[in-house]
């Protein structure tokens, strides 16, 4: 009766699309709701009148959040983390992927190094020894603690290796005949051919650094060194009265905690939302490139 290719059953299609639309709405509803809360007055929020649209529109929650020095400082540390971490991650990813993408006859130690890196995703020392090594290397309370321990993202390296392996060998041989060394090959042939995959991986790395919260939480003894997500973790999820100054407490009595939280959440989400169109354009390629073959 109904056929997929030629005669779509209208009832089935309508039902299917309605279900998908409902699903998407359920997905995005919590996010829009919190956004609406952040622009509403505390009284409107408390009386439960806010659903998907701000009630008694106000920017006072945002004013309160941006006037909190700790929030701005944490935001700054997150930006710093992304600006330092992304280039370092990318540089090391490329520098590791290039040699490992070689054939064994070109790089005889390849197998050894592949295993050297693979072992680290299969087995780890665990939380406590990891923490101690970082403390031993003197990185506690430094932004480098958030960058150096994860400076070589192995999964991204694998993605990059798979991409580098698609570079036609003839291209490389021709350049080699002309006297190009490995540095030149990487810089002049491999990298220009890999712009899409590098863009993809960079975006993932930026999102990863922006979203990371656990390392900041345990590697920064001084809360004033927290990146934004760690700061929010302590403020929203596990509120610790010690973190709030008296001024905060005073104002919190006036401004409902709930709308303030909503504003903080939305500001922390904003960079991801801005990057999202680009992310979305690239990640489908990225995923199918790296993870599943066959």
């Amino acid at each position, binding site marked *: 009766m109904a056929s997929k290719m030629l005669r779509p059953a209208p009832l089935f299609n309508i039902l299917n*699309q309605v279900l998908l*639309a409902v699903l998407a709405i359920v997905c995005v509803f919590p996010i829009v709701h919190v956004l609406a809360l952040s622009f509403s007055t505390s009284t409107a929020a408390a009386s439960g009148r806010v659903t998907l649209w701000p009630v008694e529109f106000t920017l006072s929650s945002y004013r309160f959040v941006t006037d909190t020095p700790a929030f701005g400082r944490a935001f700054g540390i997150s930006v710093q983390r992304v600006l330092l971490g992304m280039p370092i991650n990318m540089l090391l990813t490329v520098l590791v992927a290039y040699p490992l993408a070689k054939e064994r006859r070109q790089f005889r130690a390849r197998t050894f190094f592949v295993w050297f890196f693979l072992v680290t995703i299969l087995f780890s020392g665990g939380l406590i*020894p990891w923490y101690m090594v*970082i403390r031993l290397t003197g990185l506690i309370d430094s932004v480098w603690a958030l960058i150096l321990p994860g400076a070589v993202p192995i999964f991204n390296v694998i993605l990059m290796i798979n991409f580098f392996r698609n570079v036609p060998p003839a291209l490389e041989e021709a350049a080699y005949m002309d006297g190009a060394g490995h540095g030149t090959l990487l810089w002049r042939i491999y990298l220009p051919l890999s712009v899409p995959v590098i863009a993809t991986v960079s975006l993932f790395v930026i999102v990863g650094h922006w979203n990371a919260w656990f390392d900041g939480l345990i590697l920064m003894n001084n809360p004033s060194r927290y990146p934004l997500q760690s700061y929010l973790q302590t403020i929203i999820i596990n509120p610790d009265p010690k973190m709030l100054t008296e001024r905060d407490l005073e104002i919190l009595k006036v401004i409902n905690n709930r709308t303030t939280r909503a504003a903080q959440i939305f500001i922390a989400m904003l960079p991801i939302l801005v990057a999202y169109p680009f992310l979305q354009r690239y990640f*489908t390629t990225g995923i199918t490139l790296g993870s599943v073959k066959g």
Partner: protein
Amino acid sequence: MLKDKKLRRELPLYAMLAPAVVLVLVYAYGPMLGIVIAFQRFLPGKGLFGSPWIGLDNFRFMFQMPTIWQVVGNTILIAGMKIVAGIFVPVTVALMLNDVGSQPFKRSIQTIIYLPHFLSWVILSGILIDILSPSEGIVNQLLELLGFETVFFLGDDRVFPFTLVVTDVWKSFGFGTIVYLAALTGIDPALYEAALVDGAGRWQQTRHITLPGISSTIILLTTLSLGNILNAGFDQVFNLYSPLVYRTGDIIDTLVYRTGLVNNQYGVATAVGLLKSLVALLLIGTSYKLAQKAANYTIF
């Protein structure tokens, strides 16, 4: 000096690897040395090699912890439910999306359902704590409006594991559909035409062409996910749980965190972590072997 021409050609490759090798040695292999803590009564003042050795006492202590088996059970139950839901939901949604003719509609749905994947569990938990609140959360407002009783999603230990599974699906199902959609586009359209000629209906086409067409992907991802049966999702649980729901919501990773970094029992925490790593290694190895057998899968 370097007569070996081949080696001279390889030297720059070693130089490229050098910085990464140093960092990985320190921050990935270094902690593996630190595993000795599991066999010590670690005293921060005495350091890694000055602390007294106590053999397997930490492991003995671990198995005498009153909640250890409960925690292991919670971990496996939560992770298991997540694995099942993490296959079922994305496959279903991918099948539904695949049947949508209108490209703009399909793309809008995809744009929306991928979004939570890119938000951290801190952000998502902040949102969830608000909307699931029993007093002022919008979900409970809605339930009341429909005549149901208020549910304490994050504070009732009978409900908590399911809250974890549903919210995990929220974060990850959209992204999960990508792989299945890719597999669906790989199915030869001629098969559908042939089925049509034979008079196969929509359900028959789905059962006999679509599902078999993506079954290898499903099998592959299922076997690979088995290696994760001890990972119930630290980031999520840590941001959503509370002592109220420890009975059903405490997992191995959160127990390690509290034992080690809150109660400073470094040795015990390292021992628990070590045992988990070893079992996980075994599971990953097995699932990888299975994946190789079932779907000819290799990482490289």
